[in-house]
């Protein structure tokens, strides 16, 4: 297949995912609702944390980037659940016997996840700005949305990996829990110096901390290259590892 045919195959898979959204709009609700409820709920519950020395600002500004990444994580993981359903129903076998190469199939799946992750992001930002979240500036917003799409892609690779391994929708909690862990074991709730115990160490080495800090910078201050490049590097690293693993899983899948 030449590159034009590959692009068409990717586009066809993206359109199929979009059709699903139009035909079953309710399918997008959990990915939108869960991070929004967590955002509003955690802001109300833990809002007083900003009174601690070393915090400052408003808690909703601190939390919005976490919820954006959480929304992308759930949406990306949903791609894995949908793939598991396609495997159960035999549709994926038909896709595998098509002339589309495995990397193209994976690209179709993750591209649709990256685009879909903008849906919860748009909703969350609308809710956030309505309750007074700081405007991050155009540069801050673009960086945040780029990282959200990247996180959706990472989650889709993770979901694909598990869907191909377990070949069942019952792996869905594992897909979601993995993403929840990855996003929350960072500086999600408080700055690194205020985290206690094991989380302080894990957050320091979790690459998603860098992604989160880069996505958050515009909401809590100014955008700098120094806060941006570690996030982009961490995103590239996670994408390289998880996409390689997902592709390996796909290549090993026999029809």
């Amino acid at each position, binding site marked *: 297949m030449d590159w034009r045919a590959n692009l068409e195959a990717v586009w066809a898979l993206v359109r199929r995912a979009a059709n699903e959204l139009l035909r079953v709009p309710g399918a997008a609700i959990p990915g939108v609702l869960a991070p929004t409820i967590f955002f509003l709920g955690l802001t*109300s519950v833990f809002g*007083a944390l900003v009174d601690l020395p070393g915090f400052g600002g408003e808690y909703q500004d601190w939390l919005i980037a976490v919820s954006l990444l959480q929304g992308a994580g759930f949406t990306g993981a949903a791609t894995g659940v949908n793939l598991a359903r396609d495997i159960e129903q035999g549709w994926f076998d038909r896709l595998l016997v098509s002339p589309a190469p495995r990397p193209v199939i994976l690209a179709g799946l993750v591209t649709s996840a990256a685009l879909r992750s903008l849906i919860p992001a748009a909703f969350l930002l609308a809710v956030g700005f309505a309750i007074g979240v700081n405007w991050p500036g155009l540069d801050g917003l673009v960086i945040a949305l780029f990282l959200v799409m990247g996180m959706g892609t990472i989650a889709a690779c993770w979901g694909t990996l598990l869907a191909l391994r377990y070949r069942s929708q019952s792996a869905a*909690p594992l897909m979601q829990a993995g993403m*929840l862990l990855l996003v929350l074991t960072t500086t*999600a*709730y408080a700055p690194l110096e205020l985290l206690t115990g094991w989380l302080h160490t894990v957050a320091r080495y979790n690459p998603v901390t860098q992604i989160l800090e880069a996505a958050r910078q515009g909401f809590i201050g100014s955008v700098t290259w120094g806060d941006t490049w570690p996030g982009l590097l961490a995103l590239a690293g996670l994408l390289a590892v998880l996409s390689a693993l997902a592709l390996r899983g796909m290549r090993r899948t026999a029809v």
Partner: protein
Amino acid sequence: MTANDLRVIAALGARSVKQTFRRPQLLAPIIVFPSILLAIQTAGAGRAVDLQGFPVDNFLDFMLAGAMIQSTLLAGNSGGIALAVDIEMGFTDRLLAAPISRFAMVLGRLAGTAALSALSAIWFIVVGLIFGASIHEGVPGALVMIFFVVLSGIAFGGIGAAVALRTGRASVVQGLFPLVFVILFLSSAFFPDNLMLEPAATVAEYNPLSFIVEAIRDPVISSISWEVFWKAMGALALVGALSILWSASALRRRLRTGG
């Protein structure tokens, strides 16, 4: 209630517990998610104990009750989903054709939820003790905690069962998951209501779930207070009565209309 009814309730309850352990998607919300959130919130927001007016100096002591009630609410919801799946797959129709009490079918499911709630309470007490929590009232305090968690499982499980019986669709009951978190965030499950932001603080002050959570937390952070105990019993009676009436009405409707 006859001895035969009790046998049916026990058999259906045991089936419900086995079903949960066999299907990870039912077990994960009861044990895995609340444990993950407990670990992360305790370490992530643990410095909250430095805030003026925070009632304890160990955040895990405070959070234990929140994790237990979260697990219990999700156990009730998972029980509702499993009941709806039984309806969808025709298992309930087969039970209806059997010579057993109709209400034993619902009570069997609730017995399973109660057993799972007890297991989750024990799990969180053990995990809490391992990671440094201390129960001020000792073993009697732990028993009071398990008592309230089990009653909460039955009361909130009844709501899941009512929705399952009313709709007969697992996807609808599953849609209650976000609502569970709304109720949790609008209570004192994760933070003292006097330190929450408005309007959540005011809602939490009057939310029946706050009374129940405080009764579970009371033996951990202080001596058992009868006022807290009876407020929780009142809240449980209210939620339990509503859920049982709703379940009974949904079951009668299902029997009358056949779906």
